[in-house]
């Protein structure tokens, strides 16, 4: 294998329990977002756009969809002779088998994969955030400081800070302390879960950590504190731009809604930073004479007869006459009958909504986002009622 300056390792094994029915049989990175994408499209496209051509994708939970979705990586221009995208599930070895025990363990178990490319640096990514980022710019920052590790950070509010890994730095952004989900955060610099390590330094620490029975084998909890202890130089890289964790039904819904303003904070139409995805190859969307569409995103293959307001429609969705959809996310191939009303809901793929159904209207808890799942037997009684 040709030597690479930097190899990316994308952690995509997460179950994403807080996404409830959406991840019942789907790994979180494969969850749909933004009318046509899956969450993993963002880090993969960022890699492709940043000129990183070697990406290992570490899978574990319900990997089928993810594996077949990534395929040979041609949709992200990652089908390369040297490098490209590699799907890396946990595997059995001479001394037995086990699942990835933590984020660091996942990399530890794929040391040989990274070693093949003999990289100077390794980029660690997670597959559950929506953002556009030039990893190459971060690499230049990392190299300019001769850092052993650079952690991308985003400024969050003080109230939110205890949900994240918080970095405490001196003035030139050199990290002296890392608090994983601190009760009393000392700063508002939150780790985005994007790390660049010098490979030889990380390798050494992974080997050390891998043998430790007491370790949880996690980057935030174990590796970063260990490196700080050992006196390595760690820097924070301040990221400016849209970044969102879409780990819960509500945050997934909110991130979708963020796309709907006339000037959305995340521009998906930038020809210089496209988000690539597997194209379902559908005919153009048809907006019928009686239809009304405004403040919404609609994908190809949709046939709209009703009204769609402030909502996201994935491909192949049909909306019958007289139906009104507001503040909702409708996933692929959902068939919505006539005179249906849907408000503040996420409808998962392939669901059929019968005529005259009401979903999310006159609800008790306005803040809650209803998740209508095609497998959920309770659907009718819990979420909907017939007029």
């Amino acid at each position, binding site marked *: 294998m040709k030597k690479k300056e930097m190899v990316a390792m994308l952690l995509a094994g997460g179950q994403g329990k807080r996404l409830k029915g959406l991840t019942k049989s789907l790994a979180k990175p494969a969850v749909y977002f*933004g009318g*046509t994408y899956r969450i993993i499209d963002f880090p993969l496209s960022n890699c492709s756009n940043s000129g990183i051509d070697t990406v290992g994708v570490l899978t574990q939970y319900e990997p089928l969809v993810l594996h077949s979705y990534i395929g040979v990586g041609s949709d992200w221009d990652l089908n390369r002779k040297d490098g490209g995208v590699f799907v890396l599930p946990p595997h059995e070895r001479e001394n037995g088998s086990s699942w990835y025990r933590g984020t660091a363990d996942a990399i530890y178990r794929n040391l040989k994969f990274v070693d093949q490319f003999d990289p100077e640096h390794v980029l660690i990514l997670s597959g559950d955030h929506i953002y556009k980022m030039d990893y190459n710019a971060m690499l230049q920052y990392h190299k300019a400081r001769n850092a052993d590790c650079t952690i991308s950070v985003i400024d969050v509010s003080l109230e939110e800070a205890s949900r994240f890994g918080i970095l405490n730095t001196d003035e030139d952004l050199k990290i002296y302390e890392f608090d994983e989900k601190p009760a009393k955060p000392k700063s508002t610099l939150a780790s985005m879960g994007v790390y660049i390590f010098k490979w030889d330094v990380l390798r050494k620490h992974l080997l050390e950590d891998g043998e430790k029975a007491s370790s949880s084998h996690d980057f935030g909890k174990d590796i970063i504190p260990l490196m700080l202890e050992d006196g390595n130089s760690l820097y924070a890289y301040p990221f400016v731009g849209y970044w969102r964790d879409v780990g819960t039904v509500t945050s997934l819904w909110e991130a979708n809604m963020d796309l709907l303003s*006339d000037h959305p904070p995340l521009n998906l139409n930038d020809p210089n930073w496209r988000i690539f995805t597997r*194209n379902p190859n559908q*005919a153009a969307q048809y907006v019928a004479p009686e239809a009304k569409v405004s403040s919404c995103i609609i994908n190809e293959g949709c046939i709209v007869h009703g009204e769609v307001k402030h909502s996201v429609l994935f491909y192949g969705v049909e909306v019958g006459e007289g139906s009104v959809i507001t503040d909702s996310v409708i996933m692929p191939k959902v068939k919505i009958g006539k005179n249906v009303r849907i408000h503040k809901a996420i409808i998962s793929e392939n669901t059929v909504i019968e005529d005259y159904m009401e979903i999310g209207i006159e609800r008790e808890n306005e803040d809650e986002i209803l998740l209508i799942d095609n497998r959920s037997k309770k659907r009718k009684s819990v979420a909907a009622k017939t007029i």
Partner: protein
Amino acid sequence: MKELLGVINLDHELDKLNELTYFRCGAAVPFASRYRLIDFVLSNMMRAELESVGLFVRRKYRSLMDHLGDGKSWDMNRKHGGLFILPPDWNDPTDTSLGDLQHYHNNLDFFKRASAKYIVFSGSQHINTVDLQDVFQYHLEKGADVTLVYKAIDQLQPEHDPCLRLELNDNNLVTEIHQEKHHPNVYLDIFIMEKKVFLEQVEYCIAHGESFFFRDVIQKNRANFKLAGYEYKGYHAVINSLESYYKNSLELLKQENYRDLFQENPVQTKIKYEAPTRYLDSANVSNSLVANGCIIGGTVENSVIFRGVQVREGARIINSVIMQKCIIEENAVIENVIMDKDVHLSKERILVGDSKRPFVIAKSSKI
């Protein structure tokens, strides 16, 4: 299907779509929001699982080649077979062939190397969803020398005038091929025949100074061949003039046409990585086809909008076809217009064509 070799012959097609075909051949003309005319025949061939498809082009094929690439979009980037784009390449000084026979003569290797025993020929102007496997089975059952595909048209339109007609007997055998305007059986420019017979006829015709295979072999020799007619009953449109292009584009807004063309089987095309279309708060859209990558803030009525088009607030688009990446600025008005790719229309401009004769704006204009 290894028994059948695909040939798409564009040689006899005239580029009669005015501005739309000044710099591209008819097969490369964008159609139906995100396709080009060639996509429909290629998708039919893909569905029939043909191992190899040869595409004979002669002029203005740059944009066609760009669109087709290595054939991946139609699953035709294969180790064995796949898509072969065969532009003119006349190297044989002793060659006396003319017309499309020239193509066939110069690409005999393409035919000989293919393992297929039969060939299906098609043009690109007739948009249809014909099942070529079914036509092939019919051809074998009929024991015909040649099987021609036709559609009985209820209401003939001006664009059918230049089309050939098939006269059939009770046994569905073709008795006449002519161009009588009022005959309903329009020939779809698709036929199947045995490769061996085809090659013999090519050789014979060249020796006898002929030039066009269909005219000189099939049409003239109808008495010597057993010609079967296969009736196709699905969606059909002929795009051979600007008027037919415009009319058939807007006809797709009828739901039965949209469903007939797209619902059963997806039509494949070159993939663009566009975001889904975004409608702003001010958008007002009705009875329209809209592709991905658009940002629409204005009014769109009864129109076909291609990928990446921007319609700014207050702009009005009525009965029009707007191709890829056009920008229509605030308060501009467009009615009965075909706008080719990359046109930029400034604020408050008004372009109005006639509903029978749409106004055509050439590619990359800035108005």
